[in-house]
């Protein structure tokens, strides 16, 4: 009975939440949607902060809500990070961290020290919340949620109250949570950047309903659905830094199915990175391209050809090893190259970016 099962129906004046979801109990699941889509309400239902009349929620076989059965929030083994840090102003940072810790009975999986180290707040412990910056407050709030040793971490747009600079300051810490903790995280966001950077599994919401869901990489390469994260179609690749070429200031990142060179981001060899490849930066060639300025050339096979927003354009999905890339071509090019599913093809990737 692994996994998370959530079924909620909530009727408010002017808003109805109606969802039935199975989610993996691992990695980061992003609830993505515009404001008013119900993603925060869904998260609050999961935490027991809202009590829908009809609902069912189970986590790895443990039932937290079903019919009349109701486990109150304080008895659910979860951590919750609110949109605003919501620190207890009457306690010091340490007092905030210890508040939940003191009330937890089960075995510590994450020590307080580890949480403090993970969020880099060791130098702030004696301070009052009023003396912290916005970014620091949110890091303390995240550490506080981790200190209760949650088996499920719920995060409600933890970055949305912060400016761009503070976001950049916190995102690496969130990536560390993603990489170093084994706790499943459900993360509410309306930001395409955060989805691409942190997500493993995507749930797209609209008007209180789920409109698309699936593993992020797969959802992004689905050509039929309404799913589009951000402005342009893109894919993400989870890769590692393979080689640094100091002479040309380039780095090679390796992923199953190939490798790509791009300008050296200053990361050490072996570091896991996630890169985004925009469909408009990918072109296809029926023959091995020669003497091209585009030096990232992969081989793959056409999987399918889908429509783009403009009638003159098409999106072609290409399989490269176990990964998929999207290429945006003109319709004319598709015909000129005689592209059809199964065809072997050379893929030229003009640029790649780290997701941030």
């Amino acid at each position, binding site marked *: 009975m692994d996994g998370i099962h959530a079924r909620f129906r909530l009727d408010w004046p002017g808003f109805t939440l109606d969802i039935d979801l199975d989610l993996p109990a691992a990695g980061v699941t992003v609830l993505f949607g515009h404001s008013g889509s119900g993603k925060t309400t869904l998260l609050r239902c999961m*935490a*027991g*902060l809202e009590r829908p009349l009809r609902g069912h929620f189970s986590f790895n076989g443990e039932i937290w809500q079903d019919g009349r059965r109701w486990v*109150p*929030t*304080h*008895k659910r083994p*979860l*951590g*919750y990070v*609110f949109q*605003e840090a*919501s620190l*207890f*102003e*009457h306690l010091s940072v340490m007092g905030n961290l210890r*508040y*939940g810790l003191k*009330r*937890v009975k089960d075995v510590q999986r994450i020590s307080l020290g580890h949480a403090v180290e993970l969020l880099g707040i060791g130098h702030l412990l004696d301070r*009052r919340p*009023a*003396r912290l910056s916005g970014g620091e407050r949110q890091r303390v709030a995240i550490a*506080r*949620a981790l200190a*209760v040793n949650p088996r499920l971490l719920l995060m409600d747009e933890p970055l949305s109250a912060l400016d761009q600079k503070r976001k950049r300051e916190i995102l690496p810490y969130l990536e560390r949570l993603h990489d170093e903790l084994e706790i499943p995280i459900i993360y509410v966001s309306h930001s395409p950047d955060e989805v691409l950077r942190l997500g493993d599994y995507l749930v797209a919401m609209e008007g209180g309903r789920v409109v698309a869901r699936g593993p992020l990489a797969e959802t992004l390469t689905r050509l039929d659905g309404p799913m589009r994260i951000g402005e342009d179609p893109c894919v993400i690749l989870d890769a590692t830094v393979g080689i640094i070429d100091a002479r040309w200031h380039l780095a090679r990142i390796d992923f199953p199915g190939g490798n790509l060179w791009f300008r050296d981001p200053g990361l050490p060899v072996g570091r896991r990175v996630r890169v985004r490849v925009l469909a408009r930066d990918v072109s296809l060639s029926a023959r091995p391209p020669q003497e091209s300025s585009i030096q990232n050339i992969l081989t793959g096979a056409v999987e399918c050809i889908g429509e783009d927003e403009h009638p003159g354009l098409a999106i072609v999905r290409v399989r490269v090893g176990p990964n998929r890339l999207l290429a945006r071509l003109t319709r004319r090019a598709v015909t000129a190259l005689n592209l059809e599913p199964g065809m072997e093809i050379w893929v030229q990737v003009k640029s790649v970016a780290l997701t941030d």
Partner: protein
Amino acid sequence: MHFVEGDFQAIWLTARLAGIVTLVLLVLGTPAAWWLARTGSRWKGLIGAVVALPLVLPPSVLGFYLLLAMGPNGPMGKLTRHLGISPLPFTFEGLVVASIFYSLPFMVQPLQNAFEAIGDRPLEVAATLRASKLDSFFTVAVPIAFPGFLTASILTFAHTVGEFGVVLMIGGNIPALTRVASVQIYDHVEAMEYSQAHHLSAVMLGFSFLVLFALYALRPDPRRRG
């Protein structure tokens, strides 16, 4: 300054009365204020109005009804007889009970405001940090609302000290038993002892000023937080 024996008795009696009433109202008023601050019940308006009634009611009216209630045929009178204790009118205990009604809004309203100002969020945070409702009340709501408790206690104490009309109706004017400071001043004036009335009045004036000064000085200044 010149005080007579009765003055000291009156001051001590007043302080004892106000202290006891403040403590009792802290215990009774806190849950009432909490309920009023957080309930969505349709009874909220009605209960709120009843609690606020002593603010506008002439003390003699309140005292009159309390006297009837405490009398042999009133509900409280029947209760005291049933319990085998002496009737409340013209006793110190009677003054305590009457003052609890009289000063109720001065405890409940500041507390209610303080509780309302907390909002839902800190309590939700506490719940996600494994605190039960009772736990979070004592560890989150009370500390955050602490200035409200201070304000409410000071106002209740001071208001009880200033009580006059209700005391006369319920307690009469029995030396060392129900003759509080305000009544003592009244007696001095009646007896044309103006200088003694002056002295006791000056004490009351000084006390009232100090209380209000403390209240304003202690109130946390939002511009000086942290």
